[in-house]
């Protein structure tokens, strides 16, 4: 349970020396309780009090890192129930399930395809994050071999799903760095805790109830294990969804420390239907999943889930933007039309998608207007002749085309006269208002070449 300002105040020296930058100990305590200060700011607090109070300054949901280095995945540290309140912070991990009973060649092919399914969208790299290796064979050697095989095939961090003995065997044979060990239950708690300590690895906890979850995480905490991930153990969409809401609320709204950990979910074990598996993962991406383990991450499913995750975890305060510049679409030549629009990612996607769909080659000029759509940017004085002219002049478009015709969005037709004055020697053409009409426009439009 989180401490109140008064709880904290009792532990402070009460000298009101002001060294913390705040005039009184009481005011400092209040600020600390509200999350607006950190305990390190008071140089006079006793070690004993520090241990007691560090809990109060810890985030309500712990951040847990799986793996090491470039491919490490950090989940947790979420602060809100709804994304518009602040932002959903650490995007959840998508994991591919590999069972050690699967055919070796098939696993190689799956891993190669998974690695291959890496995409770029609005400047972000999108890919899967983890591979979950499951000891379905029941044999420790088979499991070890499969772990080795997966490590050789892909650099992503692992989730090791096996009993303590099999995990220990796989880990001692040059196992992966900081895999997520799955899972500690009431029955094997000590053995799994030992392993997590031995290998410095995060540990999944699988209780039978919310009550048992509190008991298990409290116990593990007492053993010094803090990097925990919760699996509530339910395997239906309804129950898993409910538990994700409950654990998130207990952690964030009730400030119950035993629930303050990210979660792991198993769409792979909830349905045999490949499409429904994607749907379950989508539901958990939207509400409160930390990791989703799937059997099928084929590109058509994976790409949609990556985009969904990107959308949901976008900072709600900041419009998504694309970089200013001139983008070639459909292999344009020096005679191809030159169109401009704004750098609001939505605008960019819709326009570029229509141009692409038209199969007509074109150059698309993206003007930096702080990520606003055309009309909004024009109204805000950002998508205006001076700015557009400056962009055109600064760009290298004249190295690319031999005409001097620029197409502007129909919504800002009113600026065409002024833009013509700003852009001496250029012809300004007013394009369609709606992106959907771009293909028809491009089919009949040809810039005049001098």
């Amino acid at each position: 349970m989180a401490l109140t300002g008064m709880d904290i105040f009792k532990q402070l020296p009460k000298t009101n020396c002001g060294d913390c930058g705040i005039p009184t100990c009481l005011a400092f305590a209040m600020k600390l309780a509200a999350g607006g200060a950190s305990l390190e700011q008071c140089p006079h607090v006793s070690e004993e009090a520090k241990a007691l109070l560090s809990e109060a300054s810890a985030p309500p949901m712990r951040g847990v890192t799986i793996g090491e280095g470039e491919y490490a995945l950090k989940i947790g540290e979420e602060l809100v129930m709804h994304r518009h309140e602040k932002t959903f912070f650490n995007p959840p991990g998508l994991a591919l399930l590999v069972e050690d009973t699967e055919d070796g060649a098939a696993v190689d092919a799956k891993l190669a395809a998974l690695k291959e399914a890496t995409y770029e969208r609005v400047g972000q790299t999108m890919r899967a994050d983890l591979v979950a290796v499951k000891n379905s064979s029941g044999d420790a050697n088979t499991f070890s071999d499969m772990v080795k095989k997966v490590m050789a095939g892909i650099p992503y961090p692992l989730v090791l799903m096996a009993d303590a003995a099999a995990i220990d065997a796989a880990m001692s044979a040059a196992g992966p760095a900081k895999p997520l060990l799955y899972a500690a239950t009431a029955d094997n708690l000590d053995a799994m805790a030992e392993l997590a300590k031995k290998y410095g690895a995060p540990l999944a906890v699988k209780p039978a109830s919310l009550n048992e979850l509190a008991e298990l995480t409290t116990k593990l905490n007492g053993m010094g294990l803090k990097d925990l991930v919760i699996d509530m153990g339910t395997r239906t969409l309804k129950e898993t969804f409910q538990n994700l809401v409950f654990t998130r609320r207990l952690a964030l709204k009730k400030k119950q420390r035993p629930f303050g950990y990210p979660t792991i979910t198993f769409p792979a074990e909830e349905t045999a239907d490949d499409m429904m598996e994607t749907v379950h993962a989508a539901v958990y991406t939207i509400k409160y999943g930390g990791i989703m383990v799937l059997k099928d991450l084929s590109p058509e499913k994976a790409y949609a889930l990556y985009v969904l995750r990107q959308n949901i975890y976008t900072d709600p305060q900041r419009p998504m933007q694309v970089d200013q510049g001139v983008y070639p679409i459909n292999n344009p030549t020096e005679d191809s039309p030159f169109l401009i629009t704004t750098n609001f990612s939505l605008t960019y996607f819709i326009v570029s998608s229509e141009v692409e769909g038209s199969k007509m080659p074109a150059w698309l000029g993206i003007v930096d207007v702080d990520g606003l759509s055309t009309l909004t940017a024009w109204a805000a004085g950002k998508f205006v002749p001076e700015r557009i002219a400056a962009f055109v002049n600064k760009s290298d478009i004249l190295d690319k085309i031999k005409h001097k015709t620029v197409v502007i969005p129909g919504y800002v037709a009113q600026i065409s006269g002024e833009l013509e004055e700003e852009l001496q020697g250029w012809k300004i053409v007013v394009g369609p208002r709606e992106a959907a009409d771009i293909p028809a426009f491009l089919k009949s439009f040809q810039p005049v070449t001098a």
Partner: protein
Amino acid sequence: MAIQAPTESYTGKIRELILGSDTQVAVGGENTLPFYGFEGNIPNGPKIAMEVFDTEPVGWADELQAVIGDVWGDPVAWAKKCESEFGADMICLQLAGTDPNGANRSPEEAVATVNAVVDAVKIPVIIYGSGNADKDSEVLKAVAEATQGKNVVIGPAVEDNYKSVAAAAMGFNAKVAGETPIDVNMAKQLNILMSNLGVPVESILVDPSTGALGYGLEYCFSVNERIKLAALTQNDNMLQSPTISNLGKEVWKAKEAKITQAEAPQWGDQKKRGIIWETLTAISVMMAGADLLIMRHPESVKLIKQTVAELMA
């Protein structure tokens, strides 16, 4: 330590609207967040209206052609197929053909199509104009008059035509969907304006606009979610109308849903790609609070129905 399930309760409730006449369908009515059945009552759950167009679609994705290509030149056959084969809760007849920049069909022609469709099915019908505000007010007025007694939904009423569309709905006892561009306050404002004109709140649906997956979904998600939170936690009467999401047309113009496998091998199986794009868009708006989803592909509809069934089991 005995942990109590951390349930919450809400002061507000979404209005329940009964649509249609032969087979009636109720939408809204919930007093909790989407699928939070553990702490509230969700009498209806999200409903699905399947799209039917008045004119034969051009340039639609191959996998749509494969399932509805046989009927898409005939709105009546298309609507019947949605009702009997695809399990649609409702039909959403999109009068794209009335667009002055397109086929520019007259209000009379539109009425003929609407009547034929409304008579052919028992389930409720939603009639959406082409999105051209001026033309829509003309067309929707004629449509409301012609369908009086059928308890249809007409829309979208927008800032530029809500007076005439609302008057048509009021005069002929239709329900009306008010559409505003991805903004909570604008959605509320349009609702207030229509109420002030005398439209009973029990006749209004809110359409806060939809961005497809990858194309503004995040904005649309949060607007839907904030509308539901305001309705439930702040008891905001003007945001307690059931919400509608016209998502099919947004999804199926995304290149991820349309492009062929040959053109985009990196995006995987074309047969499933568009269906997944529509399904995940629908999942998102429904998890954010949308009460009525306008959808296009029967497979996506099936997946959403399955999801709703699982979540409400």
